[in-house]
C-alpha cells in the first residue's frame, strides 16, 4: 500500500509530495501519477520519503524516468528524509549520484532556492 499526500506552499513557493508505505511493481503507478502532478504544478519540488518503508526497482525506475524531464523543464527537485535501509537501495544502483538527496526538510528547502 502506498500513501501519497501533497502540499503547495506559497511563500517560499514549493510543492511538497509525501510518499509513504511500500512502492513495488503493483503500486509504482501511484508514485508516477504523484510526481507528474507535482511537475505540472511547480518548478520547485521536494519529496518527503520519511514514511517510505520499501521501494523496489519499479519505484526507482519512476524516479529515473523523470530525471531528463526535470532537466528539460529546469525543475528543482530534491528528495529527503529516507530511512537508512531505503537510502541504501538508491545507493546500490548509484541513484544517489543522479538525484539530489538530503537528510532533512530544511536542507531540501535550502537546495531548491
Amino acid at each position: 500500500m502506498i500513501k501519497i499526500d501533497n502540499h503547495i506552499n506559497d511563500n517560499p513557493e514549493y510543492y511538497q509530495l509525501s510518499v509513504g508505505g511500500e512502492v513495488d511493481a503493483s503500486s509504482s503507478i501511484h508514485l508516477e501519477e504523484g510526481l507528474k502532478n507535482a511537475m505540472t504544478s511547480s518548478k520547485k519540488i521536494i519529496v518527503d520519503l520519511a514514511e517510505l518503508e520499501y521501494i523496489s526497482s519499479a519505484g526507482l525506475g519512476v524516479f529515473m524516468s523523470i530525471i531528463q524531464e526535470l532537466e528539460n523543464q529546469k525543475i528543482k527537485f530534491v528528495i529527503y528524509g529516507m530511512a537508512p535501509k531505503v537510502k541504501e537501495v538508491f545507493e546500490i544502483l548509484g541513484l544517489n549520484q543522479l538525484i539530489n538527496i538530503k537528510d532533512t526538510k530544511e536542507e531540501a528547502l535550502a537546495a531548491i532556492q
Partner: protein
Amino acid sequence: MHQFKTNCKRERLKEIRHFVAEVLTDIGLSEIDAHKVILAVDEVCANLIIHSNKCNPSECLEVFIEDHGLDGVLFEIIDYGVGFNYNNYKEPNLEEIIRKRKKGGLGIMLVKNIMDTVEFKNEENKNICRMIKKFTKTK
C-alpha cells in the same frame, strides 16, 4: 525448508515479501541485511509474474528458502511461464535509461548486486531461479 506458493498477480508481491521477512527473522538476520534480500526476491518474483506469466492469476509461483549455515541461505523461485534467458541479460546503462525515460531494466541489476550467486535454469517444464546469500547472523 520454508515454502510459499502463490498465484501470478502483482498484488501477491507484498505477501511474498512478508513470507521472506518472517523466514529471515527466524534465521536471525539483521533488518538491513534482510531488507536487501527481501528486495532481491521481490525483484525476481515481479519479473516472473509480469514478464514470464503476464500477470495470469491461474499461473503459480513457488518460493523456497533453506538455511545452509555458513554456506549461506538458499532461495529458489519456481514458475512455469516463459523462461528468462539470463545468459542474454546485458546490464543496462543508467544514462541510457534516463535518456530514453525507461522505467524497467533495473531489477536484475539490483539482484546481481545483492545476492552472492544468481542462476536461472529450465528443467522439464519449470523455470528455476536459484540464489544464494551469505551473511553474518545476529542471533
